[in-house]
């Protein structure tokens, strides 16, 4: 399956979930498909979108939170699986878009390409529910169960590498603007206070 098609299926099943996107193709395609403002599109901190999502999930325990991670980011911080398992957040679902390459840097191959089983790693870390999905029909079929289940739930999404294809990043979201748009979106959606009375 292609990443864009995969994102369309995820978006169909999203419900009220707040989504944290690792930088790169996952973020770019999620933006292209959803244009959602209650999603955070990381510009940096590669490897730490899942940790960001965990901190958010623990802070808003009644709201579903999705981490939309990538294989490159997961490999940079595999310890996030152990930290996540240690917390067992019921509202967190962790998706990893696995295209076997660093798509945004000329599709250079991933380390140990194709041989590392990320779902098995998640299970070994203590995340009991961890699956690999290879095609769109299967994804569409399993998503109701993934959404309904208590977290943590880890889903490896095996997508095709797409050489010579580059989706533009969320272009009109500069770094600080992202903070305020996302924070204001959560304030409105959840009735929480992210910013103080003077805006910081």
């Amino acid at each position, binding site marked *: 399956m292609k990443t864009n098609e995969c994102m369309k299926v995820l978006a169909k099943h999203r419900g009220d979930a707040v989504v944290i996107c690792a930088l790169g193709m996952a973020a770019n395609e999620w933006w292209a498909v959803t244009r959602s403002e209650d999603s955070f599109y990381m510009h*940096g901190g590669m490897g730490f979108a899942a940790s960001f999502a965990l901190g958010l999930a623990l802070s808003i325990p009644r709201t579903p939170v999705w981490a939309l991670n990538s294989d490159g980011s997961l490999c940079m911080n595999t310890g996030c699986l152990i930290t996540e398992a240690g917390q067992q957040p019921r509202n967190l679902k962790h998706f990893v878009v696995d295209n076997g390459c660093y798509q945004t840097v000329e599709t250079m191959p991933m380390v140990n390409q194709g041989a590392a089983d990320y779902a098995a790693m998640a299970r070994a870390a203590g995340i009991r529910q961890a699956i690999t999905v290879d095609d769109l029909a299967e994804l569409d079929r399993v998503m109701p169960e993934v959404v309904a289940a208590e977290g943590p739930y880890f889903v490896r999404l095996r997508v095709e590498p797409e050489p010579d294809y580059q989706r533009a990043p969320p272009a009109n979201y500069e770094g600080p603007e992202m903070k305020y748009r996302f924070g204001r979106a959560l304030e409105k959606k959840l009735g929480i206070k992210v910013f103080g009375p003077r805006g910081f």
Partner: protein
Amino acid sequence: MDVNDKIHAQLVKAGVRLAASLPDDWVNTLIRRISKDNQIHHVPVCREAETIAICAGAFFGGVRSVAIFGNTGLLTCTGEMATLCLRHAIPVFCIVSGRGSIDDHKVYQEVQGRRTIPLLQAYDYPYKIIDREEEIEDIPNAYEWHRLQKRPFVLFLTKKLLGTKA
């Protein structure tokens, strides 16, 4: 009430409700106290940069948080502090052991003692060194100030303050 109790109490006063930590022997007592406090959700992590991202996530959940770790760990996560927190103007409050000071004779802390402050200055991360017990009361003010600064802030705890033998 000892020094660690006072730091803990001032963090609660500042509104902190989540703490992410990785052990260092100078701050372990503080971590243990916080982990036993039901008002503060404690998240032990595998590496220090996770604390930065977890606290950044908590910020957007409207939850005040603190990252606690050692000076060596601070050196390992300055990149994430820059590309996540500076990039998106996200405040993160860090409590860090001031290892490598003149009274810390562990050879493996020597570089940290010499290079940490110049590194923070290069990134323009604000910091404060707490050396005396009466300065602990500054923590709530420091917390408000770091939110205003919209970037990572480091509060160093010294050996003299903590009275540690390690």
